[in-house]
């Protein structure tokens, strides 16, 4: 066996050491602290801070708000991921051509990815404003609603949920489109030609040749979108502030509110841990499952 080398004071080892220590301090140590907090009744309002075992986790089960925010998060994540992927793929297939027109159109679909969620939230709050918003104005002009009629897009529970879902899809389509465009460019033309020669129609070619080869793109898009949707916070804060009556409150929003407004740090930590576990399962579990079904040629 080789003798153990001593720590060398060269550029790489010094930089790596500082970087890793910083990372441990900012991310890993707080993560462990969060686990610890989640077993305490840490609350900034009363000075006591004692160990309560699994009480916070048990309270979650009977917390209606926790259940409704979790349900809202699961529901919106699933719908947005599904629809943004379908629409993103459709856009990618339609725009997978050369030329300035197509390049411009691709750019339009990608721009929301560059904007902050805060800006997107405000643009759409303006669009969906019941009196002066453009959406209702246009609907009035084409006669779908009466002259004095208003649809309260952000004011009723169902419509507010649908609006949030719609805006998230609008924001995410560009991401899916770019990834699918990249994947489409990796599909060899001769495979499609071969399918053609064998008498496959366009749907069959897509279903049996193109789509399976897009599977790495599907993995990336599904996992990334689910993770981003599970963290959904900014758009809710700007567009609905969780209203009306808490119906558009996401789990990430509830955790943030509990931790920094209500100051129930222990309980918020327990929910944050649950959120983390959900995300870990999605990225590791679902990612591995989708990857195992990927096809190569």
């Amino acid at each position, binding site marked *: 066996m080789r003798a153990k080398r001593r720590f060398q004071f060269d550029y790489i080892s010094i930089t790596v050491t500082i970087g890793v220590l910083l990372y441990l301090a900012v991310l890993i140590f707080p993560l462990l602290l969060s686990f610890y907090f989640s077993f305490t009744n840490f609350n900034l309002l009363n000075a006591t801070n004692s160990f309560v075992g699994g009480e916070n986790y048990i309270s979650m089960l009977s917390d209606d708000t926790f259940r409704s925010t979790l349900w809202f998060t699961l529901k919106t994540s699933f719908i947005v991921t599904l629809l943004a992927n379908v629409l993103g793929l459709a856009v990618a297939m339609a725009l997978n051509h050369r030329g300035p027109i197509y390049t411009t159109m691709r750019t339009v679909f990608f721009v929301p990815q560059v904007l902050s969620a805060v800006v997107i939230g405000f643009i759409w709050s303006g669009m969906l404003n019941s009196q002066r918003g453009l959406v209702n104005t246009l609907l009035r002009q084409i006669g779908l609603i009466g002259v004095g009629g208003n649809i309260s897009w952000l004011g009723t529970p169902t419509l507010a949920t649908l609006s949030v879902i719609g805006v998230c899809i609008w924001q995410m389509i560009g991401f899916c489109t770019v990834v699918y465009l990249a994947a489409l460019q990796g599909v060899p033309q001769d495979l499609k030609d071969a399918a053609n020669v064998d008498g496959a129609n366009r749907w069959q070619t897509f279903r049996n040749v193109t789509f399976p080869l897009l599977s*790495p793109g599907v993995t990336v898009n599904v996992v990334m979108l689910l993770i981003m949707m599970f963290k959904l916070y900014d758009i809710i804060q700007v567009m609905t502030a969780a209203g009306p009556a808490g119906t558009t409150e996401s789990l990430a929003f509830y955790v943030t509110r509990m931790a920094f407004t209500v100051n129930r740090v222990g309980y918020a930590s327990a929910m944050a841990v649950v959120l983390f576990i959900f995300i870990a399962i999605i990225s590791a579990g679902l990612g591995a499952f989708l990857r195992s079904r990927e096809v190569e040629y």
Partner: protein
Amino acid sequence: MKPKQFTVLILLTLITALFGLPLYMAVVNTFKTQAQILADPLGFPAPFTLDNLAKAFGRPDNLVARGLLTSTILVIVSVFFIVIFSSAIGYYIARHNTRLSQGLQLLFLAGMMIPAQVYLIPIVQIFRTFHLIGSFVGVLVVFIGGGLLSFAVFVYTGFIKNVPRELEEAALIDGANKFQMFWKILFPLLRPATATVVIFLSLWIWNEFLLPLILLGPGNGVTITLGVYMALGQLYTINYGQMFAMMMIASVPMLAFFFIFQKEFIAGLMGGALKG
């Protein structure tokens, strides 16, 4: 062009126009008077006015000018340090196959899954103890050492694994020390990885909302994104022109960045897609 192709192109253009309508509206209304915005939200500006932009910049609380400065400094300093740390860590993980390097790889992969709330809750408690809430340095440290670092390490590790070792070894044999070897020989070869890291990190830091909201708090040298949120929260129903002007100012730097580096942007995303 065949008639059918033409119809498809028209349809695509219509769909794209509908998709881009909110963006178009935000842009044209920045240059309109309040009266025209209310009467004619979709038309071109007539008269054309820069009043909204001027008013946004001239706000008495200086939110816009200060926000732009704060965000720019935050982005430059954080990205600079993240590139230095992540390129070295990525190099270490890619070039070693020890238990330590594998452990580090796992540790940094895990970092990408941690939602901000999980580490922000304890960090706020720690910062409160050390009176770091509202401090610029505190935010910088969290940006540099947080989840963004793990993303950058992931990009550099993947990239360096595909760079042949020979050049580095030759440089070391020729008497270069590790610092010279890394910055003079290896780092120039990592340009595409660096481009991906710099572009996405700049975008994310510029647009980040929760972290500065919690750690800086309102009123303490806010970032531009936080500034927009605070300003629009106050005047949103009153003055549309101001609202669009502020969003425009907050978005233009990143839009310009995107248009200049569009190729690298797409390449960065594609790299992720192809690796899976």
